[in-house]
């Protein structure tokens, strides 16, 4: 736990004004961006490769390698993915809101490395305050000549546009984000042929990096890639941010060293389960990730490889903790409902399958479950993610559909008895069970309203 803080250091040291240009420059800001102007694309790409920095948006792919794939055609574009929308995740919100200049400096470095002259920050529409903070910081950077024509007095031009989303989780998927930025529906593109590095924004080579990823860059350049990599003694380098929520005493964002276990995170850092209850399950990497249970996973190391070996992922770094009084059917329904609501609708298995799963779970929770329903849900899931394995064998265009399968897999693997009891007893017995039990489930009527898949009001 002696690992220093990297991306959250300034906001921890200066909790009131870490977002201001004054504070940023006083604490060493914009030195590395200026220095990067003197480095070649190859030098920058190699440095970032050597640092071992992994993308922090969910896919955990080497950032340097991603840059190296950029096709030679120009103009190239850079898009920063600040569409953070995965349930449980709120780390980028903090980075955007509390240290926007750090991200802008990372953007300048990334732009130089990838010969980009127009970059975009795509911030989800429900984050107006972070977007305002970023826009203010961008305006300051322009005013000081850090952005715009001839940045830092060089002959390098860099425009930066802050773009606000419109409310669609799927736009966090990089090709959907590109479509959205082009003014299209936020539907993911096919890969192949639309790999952003070759055919991205406006069909030109495009780098899409996450907010946290680029926020690390000024520090990598400042420390040198070796020192950055050596912050950790396992394969994952540097530090990583995790968003902790649910039934823990100390929820919040934590910048963590590699090598700790889930027990360390939940019981030490998170302060244990609220009300001293028992831990029942947790989602280790955002709502898409297959669930973990204490009996099997509590002492696993929190690392990309160890998590993958156990059949899940660290994803967006969101940990959602559920105590013994949590109804697993309801929790599963809530996660599946999210993906059904956020499905873009273009491919059949996701559009039809996620909604079907949501309907089945709602029926079970509300007392209309049948003995065959869990098997049916598993089979429907099988049609979205063949074999229900990890990583999923998708029948879909993008991973959103298979994400909805994770809760079903959890019910099947760990909580069959709980599902059976819902069926046998005609509904839910956990605290907070709705009084709408045993009433017919009204489903299948589409509406443009947000109420399409809403929890039912008492009536």
């Amino acid at each position, binding site marked *: 736990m002696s690992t220093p803080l990297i991306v959250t250091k300034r*906001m921890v040291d200066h909790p009131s*004004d870490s*977002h201001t240009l004054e504070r940023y420059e006083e604490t060493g800001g914009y030195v590395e961006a200026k220095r990067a102007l003197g480095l070649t694309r190859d030098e920058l790409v190699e440095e970032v490769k050597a640092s071992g920095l992994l993308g922090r948006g969910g896919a955990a792919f080497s950032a340097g390698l991603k840059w190296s794939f950029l096709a030679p055609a120009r103009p190239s574009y850079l898009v920063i993915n600040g569409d953070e*929308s995965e*349930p*449980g*995740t709120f780390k980028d*919100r*903090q980075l955007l809101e*509390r240290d926007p200049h750090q991200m802008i400096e990372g953007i300048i470095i990334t732009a130089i490395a990838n010969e980009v002259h*127009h970059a975009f920050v795509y911030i*989800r*529409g*429900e*984050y*107006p305050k972070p*977007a*305002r903070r970023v*826009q203010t910081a961008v*305006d300051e950077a322009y005013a000081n000549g850090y952005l715009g024509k001839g940045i830092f007095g060089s002959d390098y031009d860099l425009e930066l*546009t802050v*773009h*606000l*989303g*419109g*409310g*669609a989780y799927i736009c966090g998927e990089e090709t959907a984000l590109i479509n*959205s930025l*082009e*003014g*299209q*529906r*936020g539907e993911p593109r096919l890969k192949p042929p639309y790999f952003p590095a070759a055919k991205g924004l*406006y069909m030109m080579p495009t780098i899409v990096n996450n907010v946290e990823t680029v926020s690390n860059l000024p520090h990598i350049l400042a420390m040198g890639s070796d020192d950055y990599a050596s912050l950790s003694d396992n394969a994952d380098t540097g530090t990583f941010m995790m*968003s*902790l*929520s*649910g*039934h823990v005493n100390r*929820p919040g964002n934590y910048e963590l060293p590699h090598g700790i276990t889930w027990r360390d995170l939940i019981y030490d850092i998170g302060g244990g389960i609220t009300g001293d209850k028992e831990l029942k399950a947790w*989602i280790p990497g955002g*709502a898409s990730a297959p669930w973990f249970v204490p009996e099997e996973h509590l002492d696993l190391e929190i690392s990309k490889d160890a998590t993958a070996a156990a059949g899940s992922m660290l994803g967006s770094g969101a940990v*959602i903790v*559920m105590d013994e009084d949590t109804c697993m059917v*309801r*929790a599963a329904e*809530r*996660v599946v*409902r*999210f993906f059904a609501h*956020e499905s*873009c609708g273009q491919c059949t298995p996701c559009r039809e399958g996620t909604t079907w799963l949501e309907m089945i779970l709602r029926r079970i929770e509300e007392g209309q479950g049948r003995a065959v329903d869990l098997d049916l849900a598993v089979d429907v899931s099988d049609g979205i993610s063949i074999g229900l394995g990890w990583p999923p064998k998708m029948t879909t265009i993008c991973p959103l559909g298979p994400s909805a399968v994770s809760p079903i897999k959890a019910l099947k693997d760990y909580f069959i008895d709980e599902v059976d009891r819902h069926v046998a007893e005609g509904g839910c017995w956990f605290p*907070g069970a709705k009084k709408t039990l045993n009433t017919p489930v009204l489903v299948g009527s589409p509406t*443009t*309203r*947000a*109420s399409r898949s809403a*929890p039912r*009001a*008492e009536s």
Partner: protein
Amino acid sequence: MSIWSEATQQRARDILSRYPEKRSAVMPLLYLAMAEEGHLTNEGMAEVANWCEITPAQVQAVASFYTMYKRERTGKYLVSCCTSISCMLLGGDDVLHAVEDESGVPHGETDQEGVLSVEHVECIGACGGAPAVQVNYELIEGVTPEKARELVQWLKKAKPEVVNTDEMQQLFGGTRSFDWGIAEQGGAVGPYPAFQPLGTVESEAEV
């Protein structure tokens, strides 16, 4: 022949200048259309189509894809209650029901006076401060059902011109996802995000 005010047209020109291609400005212009008329009308979509040089059907395809472009009459205050997993675990459903009950407005609907719209939403990125509520996308974290009722009362009675996230957090919030730092001035004036390029950030002083 624009249906927009000269000021809004100037905003539109400024927004278009920020993108290499006109069509990219569809999303910000849709917010402008909402700010101009209170919600997104067919006329507003047709206007955006003109600016971006695409068909109104293409604009509708985009507008209807996203949840924040409200194509139905929406109140001055849009109260959005998160009921996704983390908020649900900590009582988000109860907060929603409290808001519905106190306001008399079921989620997905707007009151007769056009003051309040209530909706339940999926994750708004405030899981560490669950349950969370937004008013015109300005955030309040750590809301209890009781505080939610007070919030509704306040909106109905005080009818603030501008809703400010720090003020509302102070009055109705609890646990936050992280330290917010120094308070911000200004806020939102309608059911759309308050963001400088849209000209939708208002400070109390100006009103």
